[in-house]
């Protein structure tokens, strides 16, 4: 059985284009607001969504996602709310993943978390701070649940390790485009394209690039060489800047449609 996410990349490859993947923390800007934004993303033509599990110590996130995570935690977001947001994405037809630091999974119970992912229609989980050395239990849990495991690789990952990490990936490989934390950047790092081509030599999986992508032009640039373009902080920024949730949804719609054009005009 393939996941919805795997089916998506088969489809986008056949259409000779990259997929656009949006990130939003569960419970942000509110529990219901998050679900409305997910629906708006689907309507605007975004291909898949990553639901963030907000965490108290987000060491890989810049100020924008830190702020959103703080708001989400203040809204009482826990595992139940994350799965509820995941289900809402599945309900509007979007392939959906959860992106989370490792400790919330361990606190929930590794097997239970994987099972609950599958039960709510989730395709997979992105675990940016789970090293392959610590991933034995997670591998058997996710194999059992039939969901994808996405690991993040970096510009500093050497070829030998790249082969070992990507061998543990399914669904796609997450290539971090720069050395640093999440957040919008004015220019894309030149290293990302090189990293993607290095991944291609050791893996046939789709490769999605994240970190720093915020504009249509950047989306187009990345979509020229990657199978997926991941945008997070840029969506969060327009939501934070909006005065009301209605304004936020409208702003997300505008940005999403721009980015959708970007990924479709690349090739």
């Amino acid at each position, binding site marked *: 059985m393939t996941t919805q996410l795997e089916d998506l990349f088969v489809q986008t490859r056949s259409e000779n284009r990259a997929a656009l993947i949006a990130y939003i923390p569960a419970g942000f800007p509110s529990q219901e607001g998050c679900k409305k934004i997910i629906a708006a993303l689907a309507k605007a033509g975004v291909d898949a969504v990553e639901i963030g599990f907000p965490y108290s110590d987000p060491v*890989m996130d810049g100020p924008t996602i830190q702020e959103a995570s703080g708001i989400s935690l203040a809204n009482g977001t826990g595992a139940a709310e994350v799965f509820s947001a995941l289900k809402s994405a599945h309900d509007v037809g979007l392939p959906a993943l959860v992106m989370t630091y490792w400790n919330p999974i361990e606190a*929930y119970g590794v097997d239970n978390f994987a099972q609950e992912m599958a039960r709510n229609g989730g395709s997979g989980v992105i675990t940016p701070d789970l090293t392959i050395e610590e991933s034995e239990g997670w591998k058997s849990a996710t194999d059992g649940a039939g969901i994808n495991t996405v690991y993040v690789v970096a510009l500093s990952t050497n070829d030998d390790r790249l082969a070992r990490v990507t061998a543990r990936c399914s669904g796609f490989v997450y290539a971090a485009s720069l050395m640093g934390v999440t957040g919008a950047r004015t220019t894309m790092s030149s290293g990302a394209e090189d990293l993607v081509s290095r991944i291609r030599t050791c893996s046939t999986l789709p490769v999605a690039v994240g970190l720093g992508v915020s504009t249509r032009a950047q989306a187009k640039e990345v979509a020229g060489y990657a199978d997926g373009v991941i945008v997070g902080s840029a969506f969060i920024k327009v939501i934070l800047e909006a005065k009301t949730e209605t304004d936020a949804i409208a702003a997300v719609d505008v940005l999403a449609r721009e980015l959708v054009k970007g990924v479709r005009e690349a090739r």
Partner: protein
Amino acid sequence: MSSSETLGHFGPFGGRFVPEALIGALDELEAAHNSALKDPVFQKELAHLHTTYTGRPSILTEVPRFAQHAGGARILLKREDLNHTGSHKINNVLGQALLTKRMGKKRIIAETGAGQHGVASATAAALFGLECVVYMGEEDTRRQSLNVARMKLLGAQVVPVTAGSRTLKDAINEAMRDWVTNVETTHYLLGTVAGPHPFPTMVRDFHKIIGEEARAQTLELVGRLPDAVLACIGGGSNAIGIFHAFIPDKNVRLIGFEAGGDGVETGRHAATISGGTIGVLHGTRSYVLQDSNGQTVESHSISAGLDYPGVGPEHAYLNDIGRAEYRPITDAQAMEAFALLCKTEGIIPAIETAHALAGAMIVGKELGPESVLLINLSGRGDKDVQTAADYFEIPL
């Protein structure tokens, strides 16, 4: 070294939970540390710094007047407070600064709670001509303003961290963000035996000299090993430093005293082993103060240096196999012991260290007057004068 320790594990604890971006730097650090351990030139340079800069070996002081309040046990203090910069922290910092040079890096970053590790890092940076940035929770910069000034005098940049609880854990978060961004040029000089492998092992190796010296000094002074070795524990660097040489001595009890804050039962404490559960924080698996969703719970302690919701993985392991015990000491108990050591022995300890002294007042009564207790006097209290004056309502 067991095979699990080569992967940075202590039983089920330790390991590496970090972004891939840091794996190369951690591997490089591990390799540098392992080669330095076998390199007589490195060891000679470090030993030279110990004797000519830090002031090692630190002395052992017996404190009979204080001991009258601890059941009459013989109490020996390992005087790490007399080290240059005023605490045990210098041992680790000099070792890691030498490794920084060995790796060809020119910039160090550090986190600090009480400011002791920050001051030590700034000191080593000045000594070796390295750029130094210290991340410190805004709340701690207020509690420890004297140490902020010391770091600045030593040429370091101090960055107040305003995220989260504005204490040590948030300073570590910010240091990790800096490191992920600048890892090619920068060494993260972590100040305790926590964090991803190789930090818990490496930092222990740089501090184990405390226990090696103290074991020999105790044998010479009393003609036998102590009945118990006591230390305060936040992340656990001074405790592992004095414990490590005694681990094979099965009849020597190892007791760590955690920050009980207002009392573990109140929820306002930093007693991670006594009141926490197993989880992953800052790159390592250990005991963590966390809620049912795995969110870190804010810790509380009068002592900035112990105010941390995690603990080193080797301590978690020593606890679980029963080789060491860990008990909470409240703010009030610590401050009583703080005042007592000042007035009975003329030694002003760090408030962190006062937790171990309060522990000695309990353990001494349990073990009786024939017993010998060895305490790591990990730091001096100059930095805590303001906090103590506020606590005892001494007008300044």
